[in-house]
């Protein structure tokens, strides 16, 4: 049952169809996507260009002064491969202006601020260009909570949110995303030398297996331990998923009325679309 291989042709059709359908239903033709030079945003851009045509995709590069120059170079590879519109907005002035007042901020606060700065730029360009913000968060990072709430987790339409990181890589290779992007060490690039796997303490390959069994195949923690998975690792993963549940939901509302948004006022997101 532990098979994370995709039938890439079908997934490609489903995801491009999804982008086309959800964007047009909302009354738009264009998308705006933040390009980090990583595999997730690159794949999102490739799918969007195929779904909507490259003339309807805007890739926005948003470097900070400490960003690895390789990130912008790889994002530019994507822009050139797809022939999509692009724009670079340096976030250094706004981020540094803020932290000039709060000089004690650690890497996490700085990283979150950068992610949220980028989000405000994407949503401003959504209004400016008349395009929806295309999401780039994959299922692994959404489940682990490895993302900034209202930062990189924010989007209008997310084609990748039900694909694990290792599946994102499979699909990216299938769509011919440049291999240098698919094969490099994933990094949020929020500070020099950061890599996802060093920060998380495990590899995507390892964690995707556990998440797939827990979430998709409905294994209990005890089942995984009985099957020989390392108990500490499984419990750590489970804890991360549980602890980050709030990030995957709207803010909790105090219920006092007879019909409360999302509790007993339940309409599809595509209501009226």
């Amino acid at each position, binding site marked *: 049952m532990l*098979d994370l291989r995709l*039938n890439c042709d*079908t997934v490609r059709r489903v995801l491009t169809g999804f982008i086309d359908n959800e964007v047009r239903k909302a009354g738009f033709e264009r998308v705006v996507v933040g390009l980090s030079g990583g595999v997730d945003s690159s794949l999102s851009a490739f799918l969007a260009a195929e779904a909507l045509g490259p003339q309807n995709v805007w890739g926005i590069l948003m470097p900070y002064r400490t960003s690895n120059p390789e990130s912008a170079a790889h994002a530019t590879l994507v822009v050139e491969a797809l022939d999509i519109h692009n724009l670079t907005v340096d976030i250094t002035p706004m981020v540094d202006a803020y932290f000039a007042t709060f000089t004690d901020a650690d890497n996490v606060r700085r990283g979150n601020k950068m992610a949220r700065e980028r989000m405000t730029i994407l949503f401003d360009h959504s209004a400016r260009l008349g395009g929806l913000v295309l999401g780039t968060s994959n299922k692994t990072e959404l489940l682990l909570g490895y993302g900034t709430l209202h930062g990189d987790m924010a989007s209008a339409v997310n084609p990748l949110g039900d694909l694990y990181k290792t*599946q994102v890589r499979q699909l990216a290779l299938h769509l011919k995303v440049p291999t240098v992007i698919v094969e490099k060490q994933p990094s949020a690039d929020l500070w020099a030398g950061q890599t996802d796997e060093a920060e998380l303490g495990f590899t995507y390959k390892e964690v995707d297996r556990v998440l797939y069994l827990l979430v998709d195949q409905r294994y209990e923690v005890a089942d995984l331990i009985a099957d020989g998975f390392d108990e500490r690792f499984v419990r750590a993963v489970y804890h991360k998923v549980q602890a980050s549940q709030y990030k995957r939901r709207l803010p909790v509302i105090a219920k006092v009325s007879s019909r409360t948004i999302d509790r007993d006022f339940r*309409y*599809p997101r595509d209501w009226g*679309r």
Partner: protein
Amino acid sequence: MRRSRVAVAQIAPILGDVEKNLALHEKAAREAISQSVNLLVFPELSLTGYFLKDQVTSVALTEHAPALDVLRNLSHRVAMVVGFVEEAPGHRFHNAAAYLEGGEIRHIHRKVYLPTYGIFDEQRYLAAGAQVQAFDTALGRMAILICEDLWHPATAGIAAWDGAQIILCPSASPGRGLGQAEPFQNASTWERVIRAYGDLFTCFVVYANRVGYEDGACFWGGSEVVGPTGQALAKARYLEEEFLVVEVEGGALRRARVANPLLRDERLELTLQEVQRILRARGGDPG
């Protein structure tokens, strides 16, 4: 059973918009008439879309609703199976499918098994039907089973034992489970199930699935007409709209039942006796 041309309208209904969906139905009915189709089958909840949630009460129609008049009129020229939310007396809302023929509704099936697990939430919004019955039409004897109904094999058995020559299955199946199966894991299960029913119950099965997206879920299409030896006689594409037409004829049904007289040998009294024994042993416990 008459030799007939059967069509499936593999459409993408618009969520919550009965008026626009009626227009889609009218267009498909006219296409059917132009192709001399005798019976046109639409997917589950074809007039309303599927993941309605709290919209259920706003899109519901009674069986006498004037909104259905245009389809009633068209049914003089082509019989149709149409999916809708039926508001029944007592303001109970059903996931229903109507068989329209000769200007009137001949039969309504109310979905018996309302899936309420995983991606599904039907029992929250809808009332379950309480009957599975075959019915006579100008084309032959039929039964309607809606989507999840078919995942309970007794319903297909009842339809066949009640004389159905064609089982009509309107469906709104969202694709789930990525792997090597095309296009989704649940789609391959569906295909095994309907072909097995054709074979085991020696009848035709018309599986009418929809396409399109609702809240990110994708309906996989792949509608199919299965013959009474379990073979797919015609199959629509996955994930795209299609108007699928195929001819069905009583000779194939007769030959299948001669070669494989399973229905003749069916022992309903045995089934009844054992079901009653099981129910007695459970003593009210669902088991």
